[in-house]
């Protein structure tokens, strides 16, 4: 089992003090230590945005993809070696703007991936432009007159697209976030974990204080198998109206569990020295 020390790379985090990414990183490392995720069983994939720096600070083999393109790369990794525990770290701009198409299709295919959305409702790395999660009317460098667009809701989008595990956390609650990361990863199928996080530098609206005052846990009798209820709860947003927890979870076969070629072994373990192809070639005579 790895210790926290084993996960250190020697690179110090470059996030702003108070950034939600620090808390998500901490929650992930705690989860990794408790679950034994390391270089022998786990692979991390990130897109581009402040979230992506996490790879530099976490000593687990990883792939830093292009902006918006973490999910296709992660899908290829999972299909090639489905025994690997594959995490996708992505931002709201990365996942819902540039990578929106990949997100909805990954959901509908139910790949066994854990998608963690660092949701700060802003483009932080490019120094503060409106994101698909920014509220309507929001003023930023790209919308100085106020955002004319309505925000996207990653939870309802994921439910509608067919993801089989959908949860929301708040970065300020490190223990709660770690628990959700573990639950999402234990789920067999596409798990979406939207983590609300402040951007302390560029998003003054969604601050730690805002979230602390307005989030609440889903009630213990919330039935995550009820899709309509999940959708209804996911639509809630506002003063004292931001639920956290597992909105939706159903057991459906993951994509990888239904590919006959990899039923007994991973794709990369199947021998490829295909010398006897005369039966194949004969079909074309």
């Amino acid at each position, binding site marked *: 089992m790895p210790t926290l020390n084993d996960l250190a*790379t020697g*690179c110090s985090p470059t996030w702003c003090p108070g950034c939600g990414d620090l808390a998500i990183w901490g929650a992930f490392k705690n989860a990794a230590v408790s679950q034994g995720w*390391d*270089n*022998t*069983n*786990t*692979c991390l*994939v990130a897109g*581009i945005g402040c979230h992506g*720096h996490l*790879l*530099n600070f976490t*000593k*687990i*083999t*990883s*792939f*830093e*993809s*292009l902006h918006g*393109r973490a*999910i*296709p*790369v*992660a*899908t*290829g*990794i*999972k*299909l*090639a*070696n489905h*025994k*690997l525990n594959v995490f996708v770290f992505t931002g709201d701009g990365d996942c819902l703007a540039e990578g929106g*198409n*990949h997100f909805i*299709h990954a959901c509908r295919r139910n790949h066994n991936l854990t998608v963690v959305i660092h949701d700060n409702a802003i483009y932080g790395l490019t120094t503060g432009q409106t994101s698909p999660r920014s509220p309507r009317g929001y003023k930023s460098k790209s919308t100085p007159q106020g955002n004319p667009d309505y925000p996207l809701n990653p939870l309802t989008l994921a439910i509608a697209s067919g993801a089989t595990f959908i949860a929301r956390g708040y970065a300020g609650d490190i223990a709660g976030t770690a628990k959700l990361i573990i639950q999402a990863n234990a789920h067999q199928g596409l798990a979406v974990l939207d983590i609300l996080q402040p951007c302390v530098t560029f998003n003054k609206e969604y601050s730690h204080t805002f979230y602390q005052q307005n989030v609440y846990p889903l009630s213990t009798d919330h039935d995550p198998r009820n899709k309509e209820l999940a959708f209804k709860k996911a639509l809630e947003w506002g003063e004292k109206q931001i639920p956290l927890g597992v909105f939706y979870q159903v057991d459906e076969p993951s994509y990888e569990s239904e*590919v*006959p*070629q*990899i039923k007994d072994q991973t*794709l*990369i373990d*199947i*021998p*490829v*020295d*295909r*010398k006897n*192809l*005369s039966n*194949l*070639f*004969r079909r*074309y*005579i």
Partner: protein
Amino acid sequence: MSDESLFSITIGGQAGQGIKSSGLTLAKVASRSGYRVHTYTEFPSLIRGGHNVIQILVSPKEVSAPVKHIHLLIALNQDTINRHRAELSSGGGVIYDSDKKIDTSFFDPGLINLFPVPLSKFANTAGSSELLVNTVSIAAAVALLGGDAKILETLIREEFADKGEAVINSNLTAIQSGFEYAKANFNDKIKSVLAPVSNPSPHMIVNGAEAIALGAIAGGLQFSAIYPMSPASNILSTLALYQEQYGYIYKQPEDEISAVGMCIGAGFAGARALTATSGGGFSLMVESLGLAAMTETPLVIVEGMRPGPATGLPTWNAQGDLQFVLHAHQGDFPRIVLAAGCAQEAFDLTIQALNLADKYQTPVILLVDKNILDDDWSVSPFDVSGYLIDRGKLTADFNPEFTRYAPEADGVSYRSIPGTGNFFIANSDEHNASGFSSEDVTDIVSQQTKRMTKLKTCADTEMPPPQIFGPENADVTLVSWGSNKGSILSALESFPQANYLHLTWMNPFPAEAVKTILNSAKRVISIEANYSGQLAKLIAEKTGFLIQDQLLKFDGRPIYPEEIITKLNSILSAKT
């Protein structure tokens, strides 16, 4: 054309009438009778209603290009006759449906043989499918060309094996009626084009797309994600068929961006991966081309060219993407670009591309044009006994000090995969030797230099000299690439004093060898299916040699041997 032994059959009708599969059946009858064949198809980007035509060329010798003239036209409608009557050579014939109102009054009976056959009546008697008209017409053609009906019957039994006895029997009835009718009514016109040769050596009939898919399977492909796009889609449909049997995965992605991303992910995780597309899809993949190069992940992309820009001409031929694939993406990085000239080369280069991608840990692009992908080619059964799968510097051994991007003299570092315990980051940001993001000057320079060194290593160790067909000292040297090869070799049969420089390596480029050949050539003509002479530009860039005579065609149609002959005649007569 000087080749009297080459016989050309054209089948025409509406899209949806099964023209392509009829042509393939006839081609297989010819092949199994001991002849070499080639097919060329023209079809609009429609599923029903437009004009479809397939040309089947039959010869005792190798044949690898379409021709302009027609010896036997099988016309399933009036439109086919109207469009192709001028292409019929003297002494040629037309099979058509005598049950339909078909106007043939304009044909001179002294020059063109008319073969009216009651296609519809025989088809209706044989069964309920309208496609039986094709079977009747092919059977009549086999009879007229002196072929053996049994070979056709065997083929039909194999083709419809999973459709049940009723379908097979109605087709056999259709064969018998068409074959017997032609024998009984046109006995004095029967030729011996398809007369079975004793003990023929077996040949495969594959289109280039199938050759690439089969090459990928033979080359140890483990993962492929391909988004459908003409003319590359037959690669995915072939790969999709055999995935369970041979233990690889074909996945249909949501777009070409995802196709290439999935392949990069699979490649990073240790699977041999290949994607395929046309120019438009490649445009979407360009973003990830540099990702594969930056993370040093093996990747093969097959780019099947069609005329552009934009949607262009989806079902026609072009070679207009050479400069695009050579330059696409920001910054400098090593890319290997190969170009196949026929189905056999496509098969061989696909296997080689998979090896090169692994050995040099960088993207390899295989360029093919629509004619290579869609034409059917006659090839000896592929022999894979000599092929080796070379994974390059790939290690699964655990090493706590593993350094993924360690500097190496040849530019190629040891690669490992996730799950081995070896830690590294495959990073799209510039990085240090372990993969950590770095803006340090030493890291930037050493990593960029290391990556670019791979191209030189590849050129020094892998690149063969270019192929020359014909005499060393020729009066005229033709330079070309892609499917033009077939037409050029066909044209050169009439010009023993001309030779052909065929290029398959575009990057790295055999600059010194090409320079030597061109500098010593008496006269050089380049031949390309694009507007701007993209290969000639590449040659100028790499060698300084400017080609003055260019035969360029950009109308989507093949460069026919006849056109090359005309060009050579005009140049040689101007010279003397």
